[in-house]
């Protein structure tokens, strides 16, 4: 019986869908961001004369990497995309809107069961709502803009069962870090489905956190079967009925992997490798220079509110720089309405507007050589967030560390 990815593909392809076969896939949602977007435009202009876009109502630009642009390169690329979009009737979610993979969920453009591609290696985040999303290069995305189709090799699916429930303090980020550690090397080029009580309890924000780090696990995409909350949210946003896709009980998994989560606790990835995961409690005292809370992994309302709850009424340690970047404009609005903005400001935070911000080399600045940063993003390869040493952890651990001035978990 088919797994989730196989079921979604069957609804979007006329070809025979079986593991290992290459099929033509109809793509419901097609996006390019400011990174590689200009290349997509160049490919289209160089290879075709006119009639560049199969369906403008399904095609979007989302600017998020560098917003507003603080390099001339990005500014030029964004303008190339804007002008192309104007001429071809494509909507641009411009530099004021937020991280593309989140914006398409908020806008109701992505919902359970659809297929989507974009020039973002974390576009598989859409597994969080039970949709197929995939990041691709500029040649592939230009082809999708032009034809509405892409070719894809049907990957095998690994079923991950989380066993038990932790009784101590845990977050979705700790769960994601545990998965990177446990699954690295075992899911290369494969789809994942996540099951277990802990997954059922995850909010949409928590699901996004877990799904966003499947890229670091080496997987193609990780599906979290949507619950009522997710379906309700997506229905409201998309304003249409939808058919979430679930696997059959006896679906054909290549492998089942059990991960015991009953002892899950605050975890942290050491600089240079997201899979080098340790317990926060086991770290020696490491002083931090900067703290970044945001990114497509931890930039939702819930993430920033969790940090706020730890920081409110207090002051961060002297000499610590706390940078907060909500994932989208909607999250910004929430922070304003709830007074979170003021609380964070009073605690000493720098607050940037919505985008990727501190991840990659976005608009909120990078780390310098020797700088120790604790970040809620998903990658800490050398150079990704500057030349400093970046640790990856939850918003809670990041906020507690900002207060203490050294890496620490939240005190009970």
């Amino acid at each position, binding site marked *: 019986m088919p797994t989730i990815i196989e079921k979604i593909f069957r609804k979007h392809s006329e*070809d025979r869908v079986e593991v290992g*076969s*290459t*099929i*033509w896939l109809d793509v419901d949602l097609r996006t390019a961001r400011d990174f590689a977007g200009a290349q997509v435009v160049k*490919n289209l202009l160089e*290879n*075709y004369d006119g009639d560049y876009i199969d369906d403008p109502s399904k095609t979007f630009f989302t600017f998020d990497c560098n917003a507003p642009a603080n390099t001339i390169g990005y500014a030029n690329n964004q303008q190339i995309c804007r002008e192309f979009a104007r001429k071809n009737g494509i909507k641009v979610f411009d530099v004021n809107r937020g991280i593309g993979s989140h914006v398409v969920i908020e806008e109701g453009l992505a919902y359970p069961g659809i297929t989507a591609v974009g020039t973002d290696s974390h576009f598989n985040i859409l597994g969080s709502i039970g949709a197929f999303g995939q990041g*691709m*290069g500029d*040649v*592939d995305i*230009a*082809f999708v803009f*032009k*034809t509405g189709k892409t*070719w894809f*090799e049907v990957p095998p699916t690994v079923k991950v069962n989380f066993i038990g429930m932790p009784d101590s303090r845990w977050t979705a980020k700790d769960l994601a870090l545990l998965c990177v550690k446990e699954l690295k090397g075992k899911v290369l*080029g494969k789809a994942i489905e996540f099951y277990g009580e802990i997954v059922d309890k995850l909010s949409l924000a928590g699901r996004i956190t877990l799904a966003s780090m499947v890229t670091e696990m080496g997987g*193609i995409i990780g599906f979290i079967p949507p619950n009522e909350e997710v379906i309700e949210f997506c229905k409201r946003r998309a304003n249409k009925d939808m058919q979430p896709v679930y696997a059959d009980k006896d679906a054909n998994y290549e492998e089942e992997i059990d991960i015991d989560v009953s002892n899950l606790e605050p975890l942290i990835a050491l600089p240079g490798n997201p899979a080098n995961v340790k317990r926060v409690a086991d770290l020696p005292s490491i002083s931090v220079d900067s703290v970044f809370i945001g990114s497509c992994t931890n930039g939702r309302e819930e993430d920033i509110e969790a940090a706020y709850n730890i920081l409110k009424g207090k002051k961060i340690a002297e000499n610590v720089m706390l940078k907060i970047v909500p994932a989208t404009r909607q999250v910004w609005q929430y922070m304003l309405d709830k007074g979170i903005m003021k609380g964070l400001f009073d605690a000493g935070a720098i607050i940037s507007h919505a985008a990727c911000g501190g991840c990659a080399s976005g608009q909120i600045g990078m780390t310098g050589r020797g700088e120790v940063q604790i970040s809620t993003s998903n990658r800490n390869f050398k150079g990704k967030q500057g030349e400093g040493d970046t640790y990856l952890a939850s918003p809670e651990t990041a906020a507690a560390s900002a207060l203490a001035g050294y890496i620490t978990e939240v005190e009970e």
Partner: protein
Amino acid sequence: MRIEGRVWVIEKDGKLIDDIDTDMIYHNKYLHITDKNEMAKYAFSNLEGWQDFPEKAKEGDIIIAGENFGCGSSRQHAVDCFIALGIKAIVAKSFGAIYKRNAINSGLAIVECKDIDKAGLKNGDVIEIDLERGDIKKDGKTIAKAKPMSPVQAAIYRAGGLFAYAKSI
């Protein structure tokens, strides 16, 4: 569809090299180059023992490599440098997923063959590959079986790449 060509066995100490990443194929210090013909000069220029590959390779040659060929970054240069050299196909035990997409999209034949290390090939041997059947032959005898190119990949390959394919549909 058949390809015939002289092979280069990318090995070290008698063993096919695994995990040749995109920096070994085409180092990031040459990423600013946009002229494809110029890229030819730097193919394998960062792979120990193979730096002189661009001088040795001839139009129509075939590369033989180990597991996970082309892992690493998504740079198209790592495919284009071989196309510019006139390389007709890469036969490897397995490929990095993005490299495989990039190569197929550019019309470079990608042949996945788990047992290619057991075929006893030496530099300069001439082989014939039937892309759709997966047969790899030398002197008329089948020496290894590769994964047949899927109909989709074959269609893109026949058209000469993804953009050319789009014009045909």
